């Protein structure tokens, strides 16, 4: 299984902190995003990706706490038992 953690506006939107989706061979961040959205009734992908399916500037997607922008983006391969964290753009200080 792949563990998904929702943060910030996504969590407030779907009123859910986490979920799990089954892992299959060839899984990527993109496929996990699609699979997760299919499992949750409230649309949330627009908080993370634009209409072209590209991550918004400032969207943070972590795989085992590593930002996918320093891995292989949405094509980053996902292994069984990986943990993904989804943050829409946010800032403070």
């Amino acid at each position, binding site marked *: 299984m792949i563990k998904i*953690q929702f*943060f*910030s*506006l996504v*969590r*407030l939107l779907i009123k859910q902190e986490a979920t799990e989706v089954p892992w299959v061979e060839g899984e990527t961040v993109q496929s996990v995003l699609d699979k997760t959205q299919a499992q949750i009734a409230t649309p949330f992908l627009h*908080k993370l990706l634009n209409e072209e399916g590209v991550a*918004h*500037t*400032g*969207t*943070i997607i*972590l795989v*085992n*706490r*590593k*930002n996918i*922008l*320093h891995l292989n983006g949405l094509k980053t391969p996902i292994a069984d038992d990986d943990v993904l*964290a989804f*943050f*829409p*753009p*946010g*800032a*403070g*200080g």
Partner: protein
Amino acid sequence: MNKAWKGKLLRVDLTEGTCKVEALNEEWANDFIGGRGLGSKYFTEEVSPEVEPMSPENNLIMATGPLTGTYGAANGRYMVITKSPLTGTIACSNSGGYFPSELKYAGFDMIIFEGKSEHPVYLQIRDGKAELVGAVHLWGMSTNDTEDAILSEFHGDAKVASIGLAGEVGVHFAGIINDKHRAAGRSGVGMVMGSKNLKAVAVRGTGGVKIANPKAYREAALDTYATLKENPVTGEGLPALGTAVLVNVMNQNGGLPTRNAQSGTFEAAEDISGEALVSGELRRIKSCMGCIISCGRVTKITDPRYVGEGEGPEYETLWALGAACGISDMPAIIKANYYCNEYGMDPITLGSTIGCAMEMFEKGIISEEEIGMSLNFGDGDAMVKLTEMTGKGEGFGKKIGLGSYRLADSYGVPELSMSVKKLEFPAYDPRHVQGMGLGYATSNRGACHVRGYINSAETLGLPEKLDPEATEGKAGVLKVFQDYTAAIDSAGVCLFTTFAMGIPQLANFCNAANGTDLNDAGILEIGDRIYNLERMFNLKAGIDPSQDKLPKRMLEEPLPDGPSKGNVSKLPEMLPDYYEVRGWGSDGIPTEEKLQSLGLA
């Protein structure tokens, strides 16, 4: 031609009890914009770098920017400039709320306080007129009670900035609180105000701010409104979750300094997160004057241990009084934050100092008998108690009130202070975000996040994502962040606009407001000028480049956890690059040519 500057400063001689109006130096205003830059120019022209911070010879300047009190972005900031009793560097602490704009509406760009009053006084300003009045009856009051008393006796619509008990009893990180909940928080500017027996400044103004080109200004304002509203950070994220959204962000990324920076992740981060605040104590959101971002949090504690209502906490507070102390007790953190506002203290330095004391307690360096209680990491009740004792200057709170460096140094363990130039660093571990470490080391007021928030790029991906662990190129990027920030501060605009607003938009505002002709390079050159002016003051004050460093823990103790596990700060790799991109010598001292090019020679 109209200009957004009022063209007047108020000079208050506290020793003589006089208030005089002077014309603003227009040449300096053009060279330094206003606020932080112009205030620092006045300060460095009039005060010796060797001045003893608590002496009457140290001035305290309250400075607005030309855009303070205008509409358009989040244009309501003022800055307090003085020599810091905590760090010995030039201090510039920045606050929003309503007080800054009211000062402009009353007809002044700036107030310069000189000398020391024999008895407690406060300053009343009403539409261009000012006088000092007795404040013996206010001395000892909280900032809340001080403001209420002044509104009652002076003017019900006045805006007030005051010190609490912490500023009176000599807490080295006392701040100045305006509008009850907004703080010029860092570097101990409130301690300097207290040393002058100045309790408060109360302002009532009914004028406006005239600008040079109203049509161009309106276009600039509408453009920026749209930018801020459409941007997911300023238009949605900050309003919904406030700055506290960063607790989970930094923790998940492995850069949340925990238990006095002994690790970079906090297992109970969720309990002190922005998301937890939304589902718990948050009652409503709140804006400063003219701001459409609304990052302010109005909160209420319902826990029977700590009743109360107020504002905050911010991200930095949740970290400092939370993760830095290993505390997951949200009501305790919020209560201590209320105390920080009421006593007038910087929660970053407070929390970091208590975290330092907790480590010293657990290592047997300080005894339970000396503290008057046990002080283990994770003990929220002890943290609240110690916060109150610090604000009052009681018992072991007096030692906490010295800040972490003086506390740890007095026990022979200065390396346990997570500070640079004696200012405690904020909520970003430099072993994870390498550029932030360089920023802490080179900030002109000591370790600070709002002097060059490169974490925006390193962690948040704004305006573009940089690898937090990389060092190459960080010096140049940091310099842009630092210089842009100096210009933003000086204009009187909130730094949070920069998550969406670019340098061209700031230039448009400044040009329309003042009739100037600044371009992007001109804005950054002014920022560079301000940075070098501050640097030169510090060098003359004896803060030499050997102080451009980080705590030993950051350089020698690898992060034990998180995605950056095993990393230390690579500051020594980055510092030479930084000196070079600044145009300084390899010794970290601005060259004569550099100073000449900026008009500072």
